[in-house]
């Protein structure tokens, strides 16, 4: 049996990056949320905010740890499995990734230590700054990596000479045409993801009648955020889609399930696209609506897959569905935001069980939407690795054998199953145990007990998640 190193490398890359992205999706928003809580603690001096911040910081630490280790895998993956890609784009993308490391990773790692362990060793202001810097680091990291990714979708500012890219304009490289849209769309998605997790956990505590004060603060703040961001995200998604239509029309055709394209194209709600037949089965569609959405005119002309040679088409059998999953989740998020507004106006935010149950159920939505969105954009870029210029098939490491990739793929799958299984288990345990009960009186003890005494910071009360043995 012939094992294809290209296909296996693609599966491996999809596997490790899908696992990896779950953590940044959550930790970027969470870092900002922690910084906000620390700010409120600093300003109001209310123990509630500090205890809430410490609770979410513990959750953050586990997620961040898993994000770091799965991220190192990514950095090496580029070289081990995609060495042609590394050589071809190294002059352009190498510096962007390097900038991510030096502006973001070090910042996050250094100040996370202080955020986690330094509360009793540094003045309050510095501890708050550490929280802000960790959050800054996570956002900067998104900036650089999304710039690098966007460049592969809409390459600009570089020219291909002797099979390798050379930069002519760095500004154009960093701020390539799809980058602002992708950055805005992804950051918003990450904040929504965190918002739904915080809302879900808070709702869970309300349902269980535990940690009510913490839960109310969490619920109110997260729902307020969701209510602003959910409609904004739909608007940003539309802009991103229009940008894709301009630069990657074949991707749009596959997402929409359009084979013929043309004017007055219908919006297809349900279909089973078939590459063999070059047609959809079981199609349910609304006439002309797709033209209206994509071109903002009833008679607008939209692309169809048949406009492109077969070897240049992305796969609609997958894209049609991943795109719809993402959009559907966006609509659910908007619905939750609207229900929240009604409940808040009626003054019943903290009472009805059905709403809290709904929020608990919505916890994974952000993660699913982000995965579906990335599947859409990345599979939609195929068969290119640098859109329109370098094919994915020409990016793989030539010396790689199928056996080696199969080995690594199986190893990664087993290891990730163990690690993420355990990680999820410990996260749920932390959530079940909940925030520690800090009273304002407890904080009368001087917060800064530093000096030269040989002593580690004492842990906060109730920090062990183990019941006493």
């Amino acid at each position, binding site marked *: 049996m012939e094992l294809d190193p290209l296909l296996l490398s693609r599966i491996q890359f999809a596997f490790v990056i899908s696992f990896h992205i779950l953590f940044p999706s959550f930790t970027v928003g969470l870092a900002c949320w922690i910084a906000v809580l620390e700010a409120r603690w600093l300003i109001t001096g209310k123990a509630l905010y500090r205890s809430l911040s410490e609770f979410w910081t513990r959750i953050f630490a586990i997620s961040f740890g898993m994000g770091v280790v799965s991220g190192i895998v990514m950095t090496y993956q580029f070289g081990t499995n995609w060495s042609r890609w*590394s050589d071809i784009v190294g002059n352009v993308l190498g*510096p962007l990734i390097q900038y991510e490391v030096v502006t973001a*990773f070090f910042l996050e790692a250094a100040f996370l230590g*202080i955020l986690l362990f330094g509360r009793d060793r540094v003045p309050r202001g510095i501890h708050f700054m550490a929280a802000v810097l960790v959050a800054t680091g996570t956002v900067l990291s998104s900036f650089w990596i999304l710039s690098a990714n966007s460049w592969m979708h809409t390459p600009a500012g570089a020219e291909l000479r002797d099979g390798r890219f050379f*930069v*002519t304009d760095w500004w154009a490289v960093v701020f390539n045409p799809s980058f602002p849209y992708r950055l805005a769309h992804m950051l918003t998605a990450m904040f929504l993801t965190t918002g739904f997790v915080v809302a879900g956990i808070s709702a869970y505590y309300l349902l269980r009648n535990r940690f009510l004060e913490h839960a109310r603060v969490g619920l109110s703040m997260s729902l307020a955020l969701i209510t602003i961001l959910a409609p904004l995200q739909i608007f940003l998604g539309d802009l991103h889609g229009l940008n894709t239509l301009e630069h990657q029309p074949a991707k749009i055709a596959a997402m929409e399930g359009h084979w013929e394209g043309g004017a007055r194209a219908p919006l297809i709600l349900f279909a089973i696209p078939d590459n063999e037949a070059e047609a959809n089965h079981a199609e349910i569609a609304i006439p002309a609506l797709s033209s209206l959405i994509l071109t903002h005119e009833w008679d607008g002309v939209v692309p169809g897959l048949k406009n492109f040679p077969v070897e240049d088409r992305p796969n609609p059998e997958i894209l049609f569905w991943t795109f719809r999953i993402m959009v559907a989740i966006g609509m659910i998020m908007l619905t939750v935001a609207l229900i929240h507004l009604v409940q808040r106006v009626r003054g019943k935010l903290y009472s009805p069980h059905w709403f809290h149950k709904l929020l608990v159920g919505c916890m994974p939505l952000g993660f699913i939407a982000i995965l579906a969105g990335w599947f859409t954009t990345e599979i939609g870029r195929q068969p290119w690795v640098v859109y329109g210029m370098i094919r994915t098939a020409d990016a793989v*490491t030539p*010396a790689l054998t199928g056996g080696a990739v199969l080995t690594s793929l199986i190893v990664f799958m087993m290891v990730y199953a163990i690690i993420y299984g355990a*990680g999820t288990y410990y996260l749920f345990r932390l959530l079940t145990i909940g925030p520690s009960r800090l009273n304002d009186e407890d904080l009368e003890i001087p917060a800064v007990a530093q000096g030269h005494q040989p002593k580690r910071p004492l842990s906060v009360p109730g920090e062990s998640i183990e019941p006493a043995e």
Partner: protein
Amino acid sequence: MEGSLLTLAWVAIVGFAVFMYVLMDGFDLGIGILYPFAPSEEARDVMMNSVAPVWDFNETWLILGGAGLFAAFPIAYAVVLPAMYLPLLVMLIALIFRGVAFEFRFKARSSRHLWNKAFFLGSLLATFAQGVVLGSFIQGIEVEGRNFAGTMLDWLTPFSLFCGVALIAGYALLGSTWLIWRTIGILQDWCFRVARRLLIVVLVLVAAVSLWTPFLDASIAARWFSVPNILLLSPVPLMVGFLAFGLWRALDEGREVLPFAFAMGLFALSYLGLAISLWPVLIPPGITVWQAAAPPETQVFLLIGMAFLIPTILIYTAYSYWVFRGKVTGAIGYH
């Protein structure tokens, strides 16, 4: 000439990043290697807590080294990484297990012994894999055009495996001297004893690797043993002897900070020795730093940022270590 100055700057930056990684993750991997042999479970808590605030930061240097290679010498990245496919896989998996062990161990109850094992085996295997990568890198990589042209098992030789073992001893020495600095009591006493034994093992292994290397490559032999190089370079082995003696004395006298400093010095000299052997080759046997360098527009764009970002990083690293200065003691929780 401008181009080659830039390239020199990049050699310095990437070389510095890799060296920082070796030093900083070196001592915390070393702690993982010593971990199961520690005198008690409380000692293990202290060992882990002594690096808990800094381990992920230390590991970031590994990403900087990798990303630096990718940015400044793309072809090196594209050739070296595929050649090391399997040992790098082992390293990554091992780093995953030991990284999450930091977080999980303190949360686990019945499974705590499993995370102890994960921390030890992860540290051990990651170190061994790094040594193997180093060894197989020194012995050379088969290149055709701009691609790795060997097989997936080219790295597997007695020399590379030997380097793996040597690095385990080296990191363990760094780890034990770090613990001498940062701990007290039974654990510190134990580290004094262990460090002495490790020093002897490390000296024997480093001598073996140093003598073995020139036999792998005639040009490395010529670099060291031709006249006048043999005289000009003789300070390197002499310094090794001096530092080893100093470390031995420091351990004898019960000094607390000096052993760690001397152990780092030994690493610096080994690293320097390697650089002397290879220069100006970046990928043995044939690709030089000049051939592998990214074009000037890439080097300049990145250098502008590095010029103030790397000092900034060093400043806040120093601050972070300063915040957590002092002895690590007692049964104190993780966080």
